[in-house]
């Protein structure tokens, strides 16, 4: 008994130490460095024009990526679960590709495709700047976040089956009405988790975005690029810590908001 208690304590200590060194300490150090000189220094650092611009750009990318991923994620999940078409297995594999491919490879691929001389490079002549512009950053972010909604919604769709939709049909609902009033509410948990993961990943994406951004402070820097730029280019470590803290705070806010929203809905 004593030995088992001892073993248990050891396991807990190891787990706690592991978490402390790898997660808690880094976060704590960043927080400590950010607020070490008081809240004033932090606020000044995150309200510079470059910081505000980066903040807005990160939010803008999230605002574009999330709706697109929701619409196409749910569509793909429906096709994977309900569809009986050739190439379904291939689609299954393709959905997981972004998990496997390094973001930097995504960036390179996008440049090859959309950059000058690429297959779709012609759009630049039409005045649409994809690479080194907002569209490129959005495309990169969509690529790396694509699986989240699909993979969260798919098992829920499997579980609920089609009987509820058929019941809705016999009660007079069109497929569109059945989707909005029966299917969507049934998958809302999965969808919500997919959105949370998409938001967090969109805010945090770095490797793919840095490849396709022109990287001008105040113009085309997202928050992650701002952290990177301040630290390496400007040797402004304090500013880098403050931007990182802001980034973390946004991710936490997204997580808390979604949790609250869900709780409110489920108790309705």
């Amino acid at each position, binding site marked *: 008994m004593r030995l088992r208690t001892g073993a248990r304590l050891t396991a807990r200590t190891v787990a706690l130490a592991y978490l402390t060194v790898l997660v808690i300490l880094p976060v704590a150090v960043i927080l400590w460095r950010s607020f070490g000189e008081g809240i004033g220094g932090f606020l000044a650092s995150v309200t510079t024009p470059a910081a505000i611009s980066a903040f807005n750009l990160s939010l803008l990318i999230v605002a574009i990526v999330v709706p697109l991923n929701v619409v196409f994620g749910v569509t793909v999940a429906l096709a994977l679960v309900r569809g009986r078409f050739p190439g379904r297995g291939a689609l299954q594999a393709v959905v997981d590709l972004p998990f496997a491919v390094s973001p930097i490879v995504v960036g390179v691929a996008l440049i090859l495709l959309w950059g000058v001389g690429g297959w779709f490079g012609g759009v630049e002549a039409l005045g649409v700047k994809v690479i080194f512009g907002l569209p490129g950053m959005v495309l990169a972010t969509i690529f790396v976040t694509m699986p989240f909604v699909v993979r969260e919604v798919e098992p829920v769709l499997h579980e*609920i089956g089609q*009987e*509820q939709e*058929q*019941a*809705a*049909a*016999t*009660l*007079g*609902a*069109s497929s569109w*009405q059945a989707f909005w*009033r*029966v299917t969507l*509410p*049934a998958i*809302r948990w999965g969808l919500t988790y997919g959105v949370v993961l998409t938001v967090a990943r969109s805010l945090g994406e770095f490797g793919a975005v840095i490849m396709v951004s022109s990287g001008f402070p105040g113009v085309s820097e997202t928050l992650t690029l701002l952290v990177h730029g301040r630290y390496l280019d400007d040797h402004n470590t304090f500013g880098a810590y403050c931007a990182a803290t802001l980034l973390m705070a946004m991710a936490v806010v997204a997580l808390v908001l979604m949790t609250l929203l869900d709780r409110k809905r489920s108790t309705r």
Partner: protein
Amino acid sequence: MITIAHASKAFGDFLALHDVSLDIPTGSLTALLGPSGSGKSTLLRAIAGLDDLDGGTVTIGGADVTQVVPQKRGIGFVFQHYAAFKHMTVRDNIAFGLSIRRRPKAEIRRRVDELLEVVGLEVFQNRYPAQLSGGQRQRMALARALAVDPQVLLLDEPFGALDAKVRADLRRWLRRLHDEVHVTTVLVTHDQEEALDIADRIALLHKGRIEQVGTPDDLYDRPANEFVMSFLGSVSRLGGRLVRPHDIVLERAAGGSAVDGGIRATVRRIVRLGFEVRVELQDDDGAEFTAQLTRGDVEALALREGDAVVASSARGTPFEEPSLAVTVAS
């Protein structure tokens, strides 16, 4: 009146329906009865429009609906596993069809109140399906289907997922409801007792074909072939004839050797099942059969295992034997 003409449907190599034609009279409660894989659910889903037929037509109230979507067939459908809208309260579930039809709020409220009373779920109206028992969920599903005043109510094994006691209660309740509402009702079941108990008419399906259609008495007393006879109740073979075990009369061999057409047999086992007693016998040729007697009969005969008896039945095989050979061969 629902008319199904020459309906056929295959799932891959499996023939679910094979040239099935059936008339279902308006206002009747018809059971589609059969073992699993007999095509009864496929037929019901074809009436609803949930499955398309490969061939044949479905007519409801004189209108050919073969190509009509389920939404426009004027049906109510109840699923075996309820298909409750889990995120809606009982009230909202029942109101669904009316709200899709954009009926005025006051009318919806009135109609839902009415149906909540009919199915006895008033006190549960603000609960979610997860907070209801299986029987309550199925009553909610029935109310939901009835809310839109369907021409036809279709029930797919509606009591199949419920335990025996609840099933019997709901069965009686549905029969009473049907007597009040008179909506043409088609019920799919694999339980012959349920079909005999509840239906005015039974269509017995087997391997995608209809074996016989008629009243419960027709099918039980005048089965068209051995399959129908054995599906609707137990069957004993008494010296080459097929009879119901409860039609067999036993007499003591000593005094009854003169009984006309009697078969001499030995009692192998006596099983008392409450009021009923099952007597397992073996005739002189070694063939085993079962007779079903009342407790009183057995006591009057003072029957013991090992006794020699004469078994006879006033009824013969209710159908011509050649059809037996055909059924066995198919």
